[in-house]
């Protein structure tokens, strides 16, 4: 495992009004690995993800303590551009969320907003992103039809292509396969394996099995805390904490 770090989370606490959603999170994410965050519902996984690209800034009445570093820079620091941060850290949500636009316009949305406006350049960007998301072959003949007509699995890959078009460094995926059939799930997982070669990926898996299939390292989340983290083979076969063992073996869920 390369010794450099991509994202460092240090003593991070997050509060929704008076409810504390994240407690003393300290994690290190390495470049070009797939890190899975797993645990029961409501344990703060989505909140952590949204804190990484500061989507939490959109909510009112939240506050946090602690720091998050991306490539050594504090993401809450004054020099950090919010829009730039969100292009560097892209996010795919649990339900496919195509915008009510054509396939092409969906993928081109991010680049257009960040200034790339020449038609030729946009077409290149869109094709490259769709190829990386393993969607190009399926949509190349209907780039200008509505994205709402694609199947669930295709829409989700479209969402991946959307963020790839911005050439991010980190990709966050919050339960991306939750509404998808097994075939679509398999294709997304295959895409992730390909993407790992160039991007750092943080994934909230649908099941523990998905994490063990796809991820390199994993962290177990319970009630807003990281109970333990480590390489996948170790966490799922010889977990150090009893709570992790109970969850992984299905004693609670």
């Amino acid at each position: 495992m390369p010794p450099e770090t991509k994202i460092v989370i240090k003593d991070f606490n997050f509060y929704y009004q008076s409810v504390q959603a994240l407690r003393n999170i300290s994690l290190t994410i390495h470049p070009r690995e797939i890190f899975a965050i797993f645990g029961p519902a409501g344990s703060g996984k989505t909140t952590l993800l949204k804190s990484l690209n500061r989507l939490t800034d959109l909510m009112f009445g939240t506050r946090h303590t602690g720091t998050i570093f991306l490539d050594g820079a504090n993401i809450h620091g004054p020099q950090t551009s919010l829009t730039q941060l969100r292009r560097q850290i892209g996010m795919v949500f649990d339900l496919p969320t195509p915008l009510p636009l054509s396939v092409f316009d969906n993928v081109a949305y991010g680049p257009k907003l960040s200034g790339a406006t020449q038609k030729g350049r946009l077409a290149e960007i869109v094709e490259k992103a769709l190829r990386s998301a393993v969607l190009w072959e399926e949509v190349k003949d209907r780039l200008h039809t509505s994205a709402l007509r694609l199947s669930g699995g295709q829409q989700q890959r479209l969402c991946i292509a959307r963020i790839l078009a911005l050439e991010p460094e980190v990709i966050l995926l919050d339960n991306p396969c939750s509404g998808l059939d097994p075939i679509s799930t398999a294709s997304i997982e295959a895409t992730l394996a390909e993407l790992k070669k160039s991007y750092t990926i943080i994934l909230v898996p649908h099941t523990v099995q998905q994490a063990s299939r796809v991820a390199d390292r994993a962290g177990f989340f319970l009630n807003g805390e990281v109970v333990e983290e480590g390489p996948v083979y170790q966490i799922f076969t010889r977990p150090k904490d009893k709570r992790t063992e109970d969850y992984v073996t299905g004693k609670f869920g």
Partner: protein
Amino acid sequence: MVYRTRYITQGIAKVLIWLAALSTIGVMVLILFQVLAEGLPVLHLRFFLDSPKSMGREGGILPTIVGTFALTVVAILFATPLGVGTAIFLREYTRESRISRLIRFGTDCLAGVPSIIFGLFGFVFFVIYLNMGWSILSGGLTLAAMILPTIISTAEEAIKAIPPSYREVSYSLGGTRWQTVMHTILPSALPGICTGILLSVGRSIGETAAVILTAGSSLLMPTSLFSPIRTMSVHFYILAREGISLKMAYGTGAALILLVLLVNTVANWLLNRYIRRRA
């Protein structure tokens, strides 16, 4: 038996209610039928293209058509940016707070102000104080103030109907707040906003009290924004009340009804198409 009485009561109630509903439609049909029946024969091409002669006893109503159109355009031009901007601010740039509650209260109050008060206001503010005189501009600005609440509330409803996920997606792709509004919110809210605009157009066309006090009642073709004009509804009112020409009054009234019917039908069609798309 008590059992029977209940059903007798229900039967009577049912009859009365059907009567009420039918008479409501009946009266409306009567009103429209009366004016259209007498007025449609008056409507021929010359009626729309000619200017009035001898105070409206003969000729056509072209200047009033131009006046109605000009006044409506001015009103929409001023009210739409202000109204949509208010809606965008309320829904995208702030959350429920004292400011937003105050703004909403002001909008609701404005919606309840009667048209004659708008007429008095427009007269003293635009015609006299700002020295615009009786003009298209004075009338249009007064109408803009009248339709502002409608535009604000329909725009707000349209924006409210947009799924929150669209916003999340736009922000997560690096969009700024304004970019999100321009590229995602406004395009999606456009049909609803247009419906509000059309409803306001319909209202402007029929508005008389405020217009007569601010745009004047000149029968001449307007030459600039500062020309006084007479709108179709004002012309209709004057013809009817002064007893100038019943035939011309019917004709103008029929034209007025047709115009309002057209605008409202388009607005409803747009509303239905918009609702169906959302559902």
